[in-house]
């Protein structure tokens, strides 16, 4: 019979230990076991799971964030609204949803570069940027980017001028961060669509800086 959770840490540690020791090690089998249990109990329908996968494969992804950035480059009033209350500003596109209710935008400038991490888990603004890259969730990035951001940025091919300060935003609460990269030179007169095509996913996390004009 389903009840509420126990909030008993020691109990959960024991359950974890037992499950981890007794389930086959293949993640695909473990996930399939969970799906079969939830289907059997009538808690999910496989068609609904398919629809979540489709929505986050086809519609929700970093292209959304790129539209927001391009609009901010073109429209000073929108940019002011985005910097003031990003969670509200993205509702103008209908991009709000999972993990964007406390969204903040931070802007790169000539002398400041911003980069986002979640050292304690892997918090990310899903409804705006889609699924986070595997490196964002990896131990190496979480451990290193707060301590040696310049070295990590170098691995991503980001070169910083001598006058650029790096600010690392560790998402330790429910606030989620969107980095607004700088608009590249030579794009005067470009449309929002053209500009959005230049904005990379990594530039909105901060592991990309100088956007390439294609």
């Amino acid at each position, binding site marked *: 019979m389903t009840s509420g*959770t126990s909030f008993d840490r020691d*109990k959960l540690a024991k359950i974890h230990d037992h499950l981890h020791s007794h389930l086959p090690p293949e993640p*695909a089998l473990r996930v399939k076991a969970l799906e079969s249990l939830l289907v059997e109990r009538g808690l999910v329908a496989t068609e609904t799971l398919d629809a979540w996968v489709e929505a*986050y494969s086809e519609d929700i992804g970093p292209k959304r964030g790129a539209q927001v950035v391009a609009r901010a480059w073109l429209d000073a009033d929108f940019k002011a609204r985005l910097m003031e209350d990003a969670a509200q500003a993205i509702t103008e596109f209908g991009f709000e949803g999972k993990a964007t209710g406390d969204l903040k935008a931070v802007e790169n400038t000539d002398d400041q570069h911003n980069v986002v991490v979640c050292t304690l888990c892997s918090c990310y603004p899903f*409804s705006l940027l889609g699924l986070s890259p595997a490196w964002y969730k990896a131990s190496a990035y979480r451990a*290193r980017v707060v301590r040696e951001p*310049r070295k990590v940025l170098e691995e991503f091919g980001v070169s910083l001028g001598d006058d650029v300060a790096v*600010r690392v935003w560790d998402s*330790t*609460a429910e606030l989620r961060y969107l980095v607004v990269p700088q608009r590249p030179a030579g794009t005067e007169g470009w449309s929002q669509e053209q500009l959005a095509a230049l904005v990379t996913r990594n530039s909105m996390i901060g592991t990309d800086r100088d956007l390439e004009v294609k």
Partner: protein
Amino acid sequence: MDTIHDLGGKQGFGPVDVNEPEAPWHYDWEGRMWAMAQSSRNTSVTIDWWRHVVEQLPPHAYMTIPYFEKWCMTDLALGVDCGTFTMEDALNIVGKNALRAEGASRPEVLNKEQILEKNRTSVKTFEEEVDFAPAFAVGDPVKTLSHSVPTHTRLPAYARGRSGKILAQRGAHPLPDKSAQGQEVPEHLYTVVFTAQELWGKDADPRDTVTLDLWESYLEQL
């Protein structure tokens, strides 16, 4: 608690694998797990308790199993805890395709358009109205607590006992230490900025800073 998940500043890791394809998932099972996490969790499980249960994975498992497998193990463990299924059920169903059991409720079947709408309307702020004022103002110097606490917490070890400055007030948000125990206790939240040298010593770049979002009870007046 000083559990294995608190990775900020830990040394010994190699380079970041920067050349991965941009697909949302690299294996089908990752997408299935993501989808289940969006649709089926027991409503008594708060986000902070869920995170704390992830942190209770055996440390060797936390460091070695893939990211979405941690989600899977956490939802299996919470399913057993809540009595949604038993440990035996979880172990016995491996390799089987289950059908909806007789008498089980009929779950909602949604198509992609309905999911997009459900995703959009699921937005929520964690900020709460409170009738008490924040203790700190923008620009105030503050110091973080020096010691670990026996509960879930969101003050990482690398930022304990360090001096910083209030960069922004963020309103009141539920304190994770309490929320992970099922209690909702709103407290003022701040973005606090620390110099890299304060966190990592004199060899750190004097130009660089790190910000963390920290609750009032993590901070003392400097």
